[in-house]
């Protein structure tokens, strides 16, 4: 893998793709936070006529050595034109946002296709150059490209860095920004230029068709790990970087495994990036779906443990059997057995004879604590909120699993350590004994 950075033929494509994807990852955050991800989709398609015109113009003027510059400026201009058209549609013709996006996307792309088809059979070399921009092609990049694209990527990152405060304040509070004297239209223009620039750079490696993914996927992954904007930029840039590397790596390796077929870089980079996003959506700490479900499941399991502890605590005089527990909790015997096993492992209960269970002293204290929380809460509801004592049980049944020791202390102090609950049941003291 290391030779991807040293090999003279692989070096430029690899580093180029990484830099481009880094820039689009960073810029993607700007779009993502504003919830305007589909803007990237439209603008990337809107660059297509610019690319085709630039290639054709460079061929007619005989300036093929300036082709990268032609393409960059052509694509940028046509993306900006697309923005202007959208602006006009929305403001003057009252076209809705989504229709305007869709219209600019399809119309610009259609114009691009028409121009491209014009040179399809007459200038095949040019046609192939244009088509390389559809799905991305980094293989033909040389060290000069690294300089151009790397320089532009750094420019974008520098712009984001320099105008960080302005950009940040704009996302979160528009009136506040205006009141601070930052011209709203100025930042809007800056934002659009940065996005267009990132797209124009990125289409070389990812392609017009899939470019929007490189704005969305890294930002969406980054969002899973942090709530802070500055960290989001870092994470998104990092995810872009590694997608760029593994994407171009895959495209080279697959072309070697299946000789005679060309694997465009764009789809590979996008597949890597969206795999990262899917994994992040599922398994990110705190926000991942699987983690969230695990938390919910473990909370339920804990609640059942505590309920069983309570049940045994209440029937401490006569020993309680597995069947009775399963019945009063409404669960299967297997599941209850699992919970009891866990409680035994924690040393809170012991089975005295076949399927009959009693509390250990430690378990007695734990069970008492839960009963105490339950009854304290009932007192609180009746005395301080004025809920009728016949209606407090259900709520207390829920809250007893949530109250923390600190809250328990505060409740005790507030209620002056009561000894009886509203149903005249004794409240166990902190050590778990009924006084």
């Amino acid at each position: 893998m290391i030779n991807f950075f040293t090999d003279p033929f692989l070096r430029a494509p690899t580093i180029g793709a990484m830099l481009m994807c880094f820039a689009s990852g960073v810029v993607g955050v700007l779009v993502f936070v504003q919830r305007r991800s589909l803007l990237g989709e439209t603008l990337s398609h809107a660059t297509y006529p610019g690319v085709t015109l630039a290639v054709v113009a460079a061929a007619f003027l005989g300036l093929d050595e300036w082709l990268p510059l032609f393409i960059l400026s052509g694509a940028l201009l046509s993306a900006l034109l697309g923005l202007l058209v959208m602006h006009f549609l929305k403001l003057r013709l009252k076209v809705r946002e989504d229709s305007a996006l869709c219209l600019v996307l399809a119309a610009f792309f259609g114009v691009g296709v028409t121009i491209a088809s014009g040179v399809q059979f007459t200038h095949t070399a040019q046609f192939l150059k244009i088509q390389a921009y559809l799905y991305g092609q980094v293989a033909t990049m040389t060290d000069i490209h690294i300089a151009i694209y790397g320089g532009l990527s750094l420019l974008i990152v520098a712009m984001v860095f320099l105008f960080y405060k302005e950009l940040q304040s704009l996302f979160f509070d528009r009136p506040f920004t205006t009141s601070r004297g930052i011209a709203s239209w100025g930042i809007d223009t800056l934002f659009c230029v940065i996005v267009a620039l990132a797209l124009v750079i990125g289409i070389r490696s990812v392609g017009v068709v899939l470019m929007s993914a490189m704005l969305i996927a890294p930002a969406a992954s980054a969002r899973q790990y942090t709530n802070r904007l500055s960290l989001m930029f870092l994470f998104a840039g990092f995810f872009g970087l590694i997608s760029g590397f593994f994407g171009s790596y895959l495209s080279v390796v697959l072309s070697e495994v299946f000789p005679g077929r060309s694997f465009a870089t764009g789809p590979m980079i996008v597949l890597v990036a969206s795999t990262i996003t899917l994994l992040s959506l599922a398994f990110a700490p705190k926000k991942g779906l699987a983690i969230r479900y695990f938390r919910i499941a473990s909370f339920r399991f804990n609640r059942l443990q505590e309920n069983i502890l309570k049940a045994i605590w209440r029937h401490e005089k006569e020993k309680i059997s597995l069947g009775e527990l399963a019945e009063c909790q409404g669960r299967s015997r297997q599941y209850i057995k699992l919970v009891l096993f866990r409680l035994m492992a924690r040393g809170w209960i012991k089975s005295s004879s076949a399927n009959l269970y009693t509390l250990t002293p430690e378990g007695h204290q734990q069970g008492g604590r839960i009963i105490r929380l339950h009854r304290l809460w009932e007192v609180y509801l009746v005395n301080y909120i004025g809920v009728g004592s016949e209606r407090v049980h259900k709520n207390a049944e829920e809250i007893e699993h949530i109250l923390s020791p600190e809250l328990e202390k505060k409740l005790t102090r507030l209620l002056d350590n009561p000894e009886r609950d509203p149903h005249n049941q004794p409240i166990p003291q902190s050590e778990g004994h009924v006084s």
Partner: protein
Amino acid sequence: MYLNPYSNTHFFSFFGILLQRLLAFCSGQLPFAELASDEVQILVLIGVALSSALVGSFLVLRKMTMLANALSHTILLGIVVVYLLFHELFHLRAFFIASLVTGILTTFLTEFLTKVIRLQEDASIGLVFTSLFATGILLINLFFPNTHIGIELVMGNVDALQKNDLLLVYTTLGMNVLAFTLFFKEFKLTTFDRALSSSLGLSPTLYNYFLMVLTSATAISAFRSVGVFMVLAFFVVPVLIARLFTHTLSTLIYLSMGIGGLSALVGVALSRHIFTIFQVGLSTGGIVVCTLLLFYLIAIPFALKRRVATSALYRAVK
């Protein structure tokens, strides 16, 4: 092999010959089998335009056009998978399965990301269609070496159209017309008043899925002639033009169908005209899109004038 009667014709003589041949066809002198390739193109593109305008009216009004954009990407995966399973594209069964699966899968995945994973909606749409499209391209690269399908998908290729395509396109049109005639009231209600329709027991979500399936069927029927992306212009532009002139749903639908059909006709004639004069074979799908844009550009000044007049009238009344 007979000669294409339209070779070397200019814009207006194209319509002359078309009219002549139409008359000959109606009087029974011209058998259906002798349909010239230009006529196949016209018929296919008109069919696509009519279907698209019909579906597009509701897409625009329901603000779902970017979902249609997502579908236009994901049908690639549907087409590839169904082709791998059935090894044919013209089979109606394969076609129906592809549109059903793509329509439902795209909508379902997007809703899953939005509602269960709680990703914001724009990002969910973007994430789903780009990854499915990339998967489709990967499958193409793996199973169909040395084909330019990737490029043809995007550009469309009217010259490769056959009479089989007519069957597909007009089945789709028939399906769309049938669906919107039978369920017009339901679509109208779920579009304009979701609350009322829910309280009457009509689920807006169900009709969303229905519309998405119709959209994906239309996009699939169009992909051979205009490619997967330009069909979006067929969905949106005629409706937006019609929207400038009317506020009535049924008028909107008829008007946009008319505009779509007309631009398909003009587009094919223009394509032939350009080929005759410059000897350059432009993508006919692209030309139809350009024609649609031209129509829009012509219509805008009228609409703006009308708007100024209305607001002046409004001020005077006030």
